[in-house]
């Protein structure tokens, strides 16, 4: 008997709300099947199953907001008796948020008696129920959200482990939100921008706290890629055209496959390089916010497939649903300004990854070819990488590999 639990869908997630079941008791599920839909701070995500088996029962109710690690459903392995009682081992799901990751040190390490209780830990339920008048345990996001809105945490009933106040509890207690000044580009319907902002803040604060970033910048001649792209797209109907962003993703994926210190995850045990390059593609959401779903095996895909998958990811980030594996499998992230924007972007690494590559807007600049200065389309590429794993020498090799790949676009 195995428990299917609320997965962590990224460094910034502590809880999710179950909004749809795709399975029912008796169904046979296999790895990769979409079994449920969970609403997170970054929108609704389709949750994929990690294991195989038969659905014994659904444990979580629709509408319930549950911490990462909470049991959603019970699965019976093949051949297992339906009625057999097996002690479910408290197997930690992969990528479960580590306790220390939750602990934004807003409070002193040695709290005074009157100080707020330590933040909730999904893996260590706090068993002491808060007494009236005490400040209850609370999650970092809940504290920040409450502080911003002047809500007393002690006045709230927490739904988290041990009565911990979670973000959803604070949101539920928030008076009808004043409409955020609406611009023509508003948020995706149903997306809570304040929650999204908090999620980004938490992940980025953790990144800057834990990851000793270093930055390398290189200006790359983009004229060969620009010319090739223009000529290629001129022969194609709109549905088959490519964007420069697809070339950036493929070139970076090829470079990441060569320089292993840029591609993988860093956890309590240290760095785990990953052979395949699952490229996180940063997508700016309309109205604000950012999401970087993974494009799996980007280094092996033909450029047309990379482009098709990017189209699909953007479309689903805008109007549909991303999948849990896309939220968690990224091994490196690529963020591009697009046609118009700033010259360069030094981005913040998305934990537990160890590198992010920022492409500025391609611009025509004076460039030296041989002994003459000529106008060429160029792009400034900035690598932000993790000093726990690599240093500038490897970083420079990585950027050189991106540059080399972009000089022969027809080979991408």
């Amino acid at each position, binding site marked *: 008997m195995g428990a299917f639990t609320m997965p962590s869908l990224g460094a910034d997630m502590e809880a999710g709300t179950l909004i749809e079941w795709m399975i029912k008791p008796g169904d046979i599920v296999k790895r990769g099947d979409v079994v449920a839909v969970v609403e997170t701070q970054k929108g609704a995500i389709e949750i994929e199953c990690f294991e195989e088996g038969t659905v014994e029962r659904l444990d979580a109710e629709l509408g319930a907001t549950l911490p990462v690690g909470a049991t959603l459903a019970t699965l019976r392995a093949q051949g297992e008796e339906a009625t057999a009682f097996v002690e479910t081992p408290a197997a930690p799901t992969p990528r479960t948020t580590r306790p220390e990751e939750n602990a934004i040190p807003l409070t002193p390490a040695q709290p005074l008696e009157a100080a707020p209780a330590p933040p909730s830990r999904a893996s260590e339920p706090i068993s002491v129920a808060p007494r009236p008048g005490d400040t209850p345990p609370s999650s970092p996001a809940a504290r920040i959200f409450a502080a911003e809105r002047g809500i007393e945490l002690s006045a709230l009933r927490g739904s988290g482990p041990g009565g911990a106040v979670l973000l959803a509890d604070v949101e539920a207690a928030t008076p009808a939100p004043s409409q955020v000044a609406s611009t023509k*580009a508003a948020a995706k319907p149903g997306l809570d921008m304040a929650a999204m902002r908090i999620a980004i803040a938490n992940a980025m604060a953790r990144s800057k706290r834990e990851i000793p970033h270093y930055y390398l910048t290189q200006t790359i001649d983009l004229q060969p890629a620009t010319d090739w792209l223009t000529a290629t797209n001129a022969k194609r109907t709109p549905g088959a055209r490519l964007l420069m962003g697809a070339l950036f993703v493929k070139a970076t994926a090829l470079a990441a496959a060569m320089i292993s210190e840029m591609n993988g995850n860093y956890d309590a045990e240290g760095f785990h390089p990953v052979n395949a390059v699952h490229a996180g593609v940063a997508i700016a959401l309309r109205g604000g916010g950012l999401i970087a779903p993974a494009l799996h095996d980007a280094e092996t895909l033909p450029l047309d497939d990379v482009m098709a998958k990017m189209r699909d990811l953007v479309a689903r980030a805008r109007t549909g649903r991303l999948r849990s594996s896309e939220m968690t499998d990224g091994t490196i992230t690529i963020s591009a300004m697009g046609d118009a924007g700033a010259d360069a972007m030094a981005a913040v690494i998305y934990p537990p990854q160890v590198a992010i590559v920022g492409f500025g807007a391609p611009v025509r600049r004076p460039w030296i070819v041989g002994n003459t200065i000529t106008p060429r389309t160029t792009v400034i590429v900035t690598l932000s990488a993790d000093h726990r794993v690599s240093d500038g020498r490897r970083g420079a090799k990585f950027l050189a590999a991106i540059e080399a790949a972009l000089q022969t676009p027809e080979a991408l």
Partner: protein
Amino acid sequence: MTDADIRKAFLGELTQIAPDIDADSVGPDDHLQDDLEIDSMDFLNLVTALHQRLGVDIPESDYPKIATLALAVEYLKARIG
């Protein structure tokens, strides 16, 4: 096709790609990228949708000619003939 038909088709596809945009609030001279925050992927999807809906294959070199609603209606009218 009348101007109104083309306008409707253009706004229909635009709001399909960016559902948060209210078709009635799009001004004739609003710039798709600067004012409506349409990015390069959205723009390509719009061009793709217009190709499918109106049969007009807009080459990349003509992208500036559909940068606003007013420009796009003129351009598409001429291309549809």
